């Protein structure tokens, strides 16, 4: 179906405003697209030319911000990263992501997800506060250490993996692949010392042990993160440390850096 010419495609879009509508409905629009038109471009075209009430969330338009995840022909996809003609379909069905509360039309509410994410402390935890406040150098990482977590650090928090996860669909307290992947990303970082502080969340009744390892999450991830693998590695760490008591303390070397010696100079107006 690849062509340089514009062709008309039918869009069936899920419409629902929980504040005013009794039930959701499907609305159809015809849009002219060419081979470069993304689903997001088409939705914006509909909004500009046919129906300004259509509600969409987006920001970067280049698969970086993770705002535009939606169900496109029943699969979790980023609207800005999906070309209409590549879907090889005359009717494009667009709906909000499953497993989330709907704010309006194609916009889902991630606030609960980000609230839950706080439980796993998604940041590097260190105890050398003096160094953190007055940095004198940079922490050394080997290539292998970097390769151990870099794939999991590519997550853009689009929440599509949670939407595809069958456990997240039935257990609202399950942390889900996105958050568990975040936890593993930091736990496997050689600079991080916060494993103990994350155990309560990840080793709970609704933590990483609830995963069925069907890997639906990994198949929909637009960044190739593989959260299902992160969850399995997280389990391995838990068995090693929390069950068998085998701990290999992390040692990270500090390389003195001339340009950060002494107190960090903050730009004017930031003090």
């Amino acid at each position, binding site marked *: 179906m690849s062509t340089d010419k514009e062709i008309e495609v039918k869009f069936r879009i899920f419409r629902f405003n929980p504040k005013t509508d009794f039930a959701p409905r499907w609305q159809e629009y015809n849009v002219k697209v060419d081979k470069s038109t993304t689903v997001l471009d088409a939705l914006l075209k509909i909004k500009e030319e046919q129906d300004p009430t259509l509600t969409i969330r987006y920001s970067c338009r280049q698969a970086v911000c993770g705002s535009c995840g939606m169900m496109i022909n029943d699969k979790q996809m980023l609207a800005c990263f999906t070309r209409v003609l590549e879907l090889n379909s005359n009717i494009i069905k667009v709906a909000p992501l499953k497993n989330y509360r709907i704010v309006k039309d194609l916009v889902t509410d991630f606030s609960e997800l980000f609230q839950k994410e706080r439980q796993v402390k998604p940041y590097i935890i260190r105890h050398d506060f003096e160094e953190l406040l007055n940095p004198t150098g940079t922490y050394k990482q080997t290539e292998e250490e970097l390769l151990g977590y870099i794939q999991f650090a590519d997550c853009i928090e689009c929440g599509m993996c949670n939407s595809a996860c069958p*456990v997240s669909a039935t*257990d609202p*307290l399950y942390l889900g692949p996105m958050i568990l992947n975040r936890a593993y990303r930091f736990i496997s970082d050689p600079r991080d010392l916060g494993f103990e502080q994350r*155990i309560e969340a990840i080793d*709970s009744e609704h933590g990483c*042990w*609830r995963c069925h390892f069907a890997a639906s999450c990994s198949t929909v991830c637009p960044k190739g993160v593989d959260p299902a693998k992160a969850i399995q590695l997280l*389990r391995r760490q838990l068995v090693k440390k*929390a069950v068998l008591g085998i701990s290999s303390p992390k040692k990270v070397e500090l390389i003195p850096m001339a340009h950060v010696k002494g107190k960090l100079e903050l730009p004017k107006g930031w003090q």
Partner: protein
Amino acid sequence: MKESKRMFIHYISGLIILITGFIHLIANNLPSIGTIVHESIFYPVNLIILLSALLYHMLNGVRVILIEVIPGKCAAKAITWIMFLVGIALYIYGLQVFLNLFWPVE
């Protein structure tokens, strides 16, 4: 108990079921080795280990399913306790059956 410990025992009990179940099958179906196993202390001991592993594995499996479909932190705690108590009751019953069978009181 941490969830990791519960699940670790779950996997180990799965392995134990495989091994003791296999021994139980052999003892009952291969007359050559079966008779020797049947007449030794090993047979009832194997059965008791199989019962313990089976009960743990089964009830923990049910617990996991229930936790997944019944939301709520309190619900999870209640389900764990109920399964624990059901497990204890079934274990005492099963043990009593085996003791009567293998070491009947005259």
